[in-house]
Structure formats: C-alpha cells, structure tokens
C-alpha cells in the first residue's frame, strides 16, 4: 500500500477507536482566519504556520492545529458534556529543520465537561495510552495549574503577578522577571536614572505616534510604585524553583509537591487535583508508579495549556517530535467563548509516526 494511504488507514483506525470511546466526529476547514490565531498566539505563530491571503478575506492560515476551530465550534453550538474526534492534515513551517514534516496527519480526542476534571484528564491520557499500546514510547506529564497557583499565591503586587502569569509559557523571560522581582538582577542604569529624575520629561523629544504622554506617565507611575515595593521573599522564590525542579515518578512528585504545599498553601488545591488525577489514572489501569512528572513540563511549546499536560515520545529517538501530546485548556475556552467558558481537555496522535515506529521505517 502506498505510504500516504497507509497513514490514512492508520488515522481511520485511530479515529474509530476514539469514536468507540464515545466521541462525535467533526470536521474543520483547512483555511482558518489568521486574525484569531494571531490574537491567541501572537506573532510567533507566523514562524510555525503558513499564512496565505486573498483580496477579499485577507489573511488566512493553513490549519496549524484542530483545537482552536473545534473549541470555536463547540462554544457556538455544542451540547454539554461533549466528546469530539477529528482527523486530518495540519501544516507547520519547518524552516530550521528540513527533516521535520511540514504537513502531517493528526487524530484528536477532546472532552468538554464541567464535572470531575481529573476524571476527564485521566480518560484522555488512558485513551491515548491504549491507542499507542505496544509502541516503544515513554510518557511525560506535568501540570501548569500548579505553577499558575504558585504565582497567584505569591505575596506581591497584582501587577507583578500579572507579569509573571503572562510569561509562564516563556521560561526565559519568566526567570528574568523572578530575578528582577527578587532583587537578584541589577536594575538597569537607565531605569535608575528615570526613577531618580525630578522631571522625566525635561528633555523629552517631540511626541510622535499613538502611544501618548498619558500612557508614558502611567507607566512611570507604575515603575515608581514597583520600585517602592520590597523584593519577593527568598523563601517564596526557593519554593517556586523547587516546583519547577520536580522531576520524578508521579507518586514521588506528588509527595514532593505535597511537602512544598505545606509551606506554600496556595498550591494545595492544585496539588490535591494532581492527587485525584493520579488516582483516576490508576483506576483506569495506567501504571502511575512508572509515569514521569516534570514541574516545568509543557511550558515551552504548548502555549494554551493551563493544567494537566502530557506527551508520548519515541524512546531512543529524541530527534522525533512527540507521537502524541495534549492537555487541559480551560482558559482557551474562556478566550474564545465571549463570556462563556467550559473546562476542556484533549490530545492528538500522529498516525504517520505511529506507523513508522511500527514498521521501523523512521
């Protein structure tokens, strides 16, 4: 059978398994309005997605994933609770690695359900595991919700928390902010000069552009307030770092995080969620004693996930992208729901990679 057809058959097989698990099959367009994806992901999406345009509709993107259109569809007229499955091509620019496919099949499973989020998390993970059974894969998991709870719980200003929350998915900038708020990095000379100036506008050039004097004054006031604020406590910073450093089997990670929660009660609820998820996974036959958990997993590449995150990787083939990945994205439904929201979790597999691993042809 030609390779393309074999991949399609594999995708159909996986989709049938998702349908058997109770999912409703749905379709989405290949061309997606670019504006929405740009609003969600920012300019970085242009490095990952193909953009095209016409004179009538403006910019369109070749579907970089299914999640956004499926969420939109559900938010417009979905019943509750709902389970969906889909299969089809997604398109990703690969300008730095010619060996990575820029067009490949994805088959996905998404749950929109208000009750028992840990059960829904476990259902998605267990279903992915069963679809992938027999392949030489290792799974990694994480929970961005714990980190978000830790940020919310910091004893600092709302403004600093908002800055940290905004950069949870950009580890380098997040670290720079922590260093600055805790007084570990030096304040730039230009900032010190600005704060010390009696009249910061004394030698200002003519005003040009949309950002006006009032906005500049507001930021200077905010910077002055922030400079008057004390540094983040060393203890809190150490706890935050301890969360990010967790890299253990799930039961051990749970123990470590429970210990951290004693000193940082703000994460207790999120850790309790992890405990219930672990129980739900075990109840579905997942070998949690062997399952890896990393405190910083899922921060670099999957911007809309805000809770449970997971990926399945080919053992001994670190060069390959994940064969399956997914997570919880409650905040995305809030952003796309225009006033409504619903907890949601899902995952995708790549049938092309599954087939390649089965046949040893990768």
């Amino acid at each position, binding site marked *: 059978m030609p390779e393309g057809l074999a991949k399609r058959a594999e995708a159909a097989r996986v989709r049938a398994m998702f349908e058997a698990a109770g999912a409703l099959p749905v379709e989405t367009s290949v061309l997606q309005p670019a504006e929405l994806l740009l609003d969600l992901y920012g*300019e*970085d999406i242009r*490095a990952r997605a193909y953009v095209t345009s016409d004179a009538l509709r403006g910019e369109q993107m070749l579907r970089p994933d299914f999640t956004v259109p499926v969420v939109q569809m559900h938010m417009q007229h979905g019943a509750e609770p709902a389970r969906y499955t889909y299969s089809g091509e997604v398109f990703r620019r690969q300008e730095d690695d010619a060996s990575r496919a820029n067009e490949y099949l994805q088959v996905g499973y998404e749950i929109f359900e208000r009750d028992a989020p840990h059960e829904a998390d476990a259902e998605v993970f267990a279903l992915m595991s069963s679809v992938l059974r027999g392949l030489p894969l290792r799974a990694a998991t994480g929970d961005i919700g714990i980190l978000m709870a830790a940020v919310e719980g910091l004893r600092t200003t709302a403004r600093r928390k908002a800055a940290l929350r905004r950069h949870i998915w950009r580890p*380098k*900038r997040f670290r720079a902010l922590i260093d600055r708020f805790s007084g570990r990095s030096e304040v730039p000379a230009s900032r010190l000069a600005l704060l010390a100036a009696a009249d910061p506008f004394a030698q200002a*050039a003519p005003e*040009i*552009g949309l*950002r006006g004097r009032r906005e500049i004054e507001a*930021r200077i006031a905010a910077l002055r307030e922030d400079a008057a604020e004390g540094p983040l406590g060393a203890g809190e910073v150490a706890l935050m770092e301890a969360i990010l450093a967790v890299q253990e089997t799930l039961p051990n990670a749970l123990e470590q995080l429970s210990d951290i929660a004693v000193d940082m009660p703000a994460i207790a609820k999120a850790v309790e969620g992890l405990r219930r998820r672990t129980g739900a996974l075990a109840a579905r036959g997942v070998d949690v004693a062997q399952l890896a958990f990393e405190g910083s997993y899922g921060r670099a590449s999957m911007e809309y996930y805000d809770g449970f995150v997971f990926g399945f990787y080919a053992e001994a083939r670190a060069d390959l992208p994940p064969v399956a990945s997914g997570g919880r994205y409650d905040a995305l439904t809030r952003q796309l729901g225009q006033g409504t929201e619903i907890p949601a979790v899902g995952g995708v597999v790549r049938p092309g990679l599954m087939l390649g691993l089965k046949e040893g042809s990768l």
Partner: protein
Amino acid sequence: MSLKLGVPSKGRLMEKTFEWFAARGVTLSRAGSAREYAGKVEGIEGVELVLLSAGEIPRELAAGRIHLGVTGTDLIREKLGQWEQRVEALAELGFGHADLIIAVPQAWVDVDTLDDLDAVAAAFRAEHGFRLRIATKYHRLVREYLRECGVADYQLVDSQGATEGTVKNETAEAVADITSTGDTLRANHLKILSDGLILRSSATLYRARNVEMSPQARSDMTRLLAQLDL
C-alpha cells in the same frame, strides 16, 4: 554552466564591489550602456558576471543558479532558512556596514530595553485593543530575535521603505530597520534600544553550497579564489 558571480546591479554596493575585485586584479564592468544589466569580466577566464538586485542574490545562491554572490549578511539571514547549510561566507568585503536594530520614539522616556518594550506592549494592547506594531522588512530576523528574548504582544507590519516615518504616520509604534550612522533615526525622533541590536551586517562574498559544478567550473572557481587570496 560556466562559473557565475552575482553582484548587486546598482548604486554604491555595485561600485564598491567592482573596486574590491579590481584591487585583486579582476575587473568587473557593465557591458554596453548603464541601463543594460549584462556584465563583463576581465583579468580572469571562465567567470561570468550576473548583475542582480542584492535582495535576489540569496535566493539565486540557494537555488544554485549562481556559484558566488555578493550581498549583505542581513539579506542572507533574512531570506535563507538554515543559511549556514546553503551558503558559505568567504570574505567580508569591508563596506556596506549596517546594523539591524529596534528603535522606539525618543519621547518614550520610560523605554530603554527589550524588557521595557515587552511591558509597554502588554499595556499598549490593553489600552488600544491591538498589539503594538513594529514596522520592518526583516520579518524573520526580528521575530526570531524577539521570541528568543521573550517579547510578546507585538505585531510586525511590513514596511519596504521609509520605515523611520511609520511612527510619525501612526502606522507603527516602533521600527526594526537597518542603520549605519543613526542619522535618519534621530531625524525622525527615534532612539535605538540599548539591547536592540539584532544583527551586524556587511557586504560579504558568499559561495553556494550543494551546487552541481562541471570540472571546468570547479577549476575556474579554484583559480578565481586563488586570485582573490581566498
């Protein structure tokens, strides 16, 4: 196919390139009238001169339609993904120096670093309902740099010329452009961020990698590079 050398087809870059080769005993010139884009090579056999826009030279090198080409570092890196694997830099020619930088209005007394720009971008989006616009023609380089530095909530708007004027015209809030002296930026009331240097660029002679060459072209290349002391 004979050995093809691509050189910018007009202006100072062309003249300076001609001078650089002439100093090494290879005389390049335009054939016929000044309007005709055909070239002539004297002082060495077997080399064909191809006059092209500097912006098209990266693409022609990558496609293997020319073997050697003179263009700016900025254009190679902007236009070629995995550029190191597609071209090899043989020599910096000592002219065409320019920096690709990020600049904001001088009136933004609260902004000096990318950290400031990022914070301002978040506030600007909340205030104006759209992402802070940075005008540029170097989309790839600017986007990669800002991603690497963790700047969010901005958008790039395309500007193929007179980029420094976009802020005053309110089609952008900041610019990312090439500058050599900074005079144009200052004249337009813009200042460079202290960590806003994306790339130092200069006119460079590149060789195409992975291009099929006849034995004749190969030996012509060897002779030419020897003559150029490379």
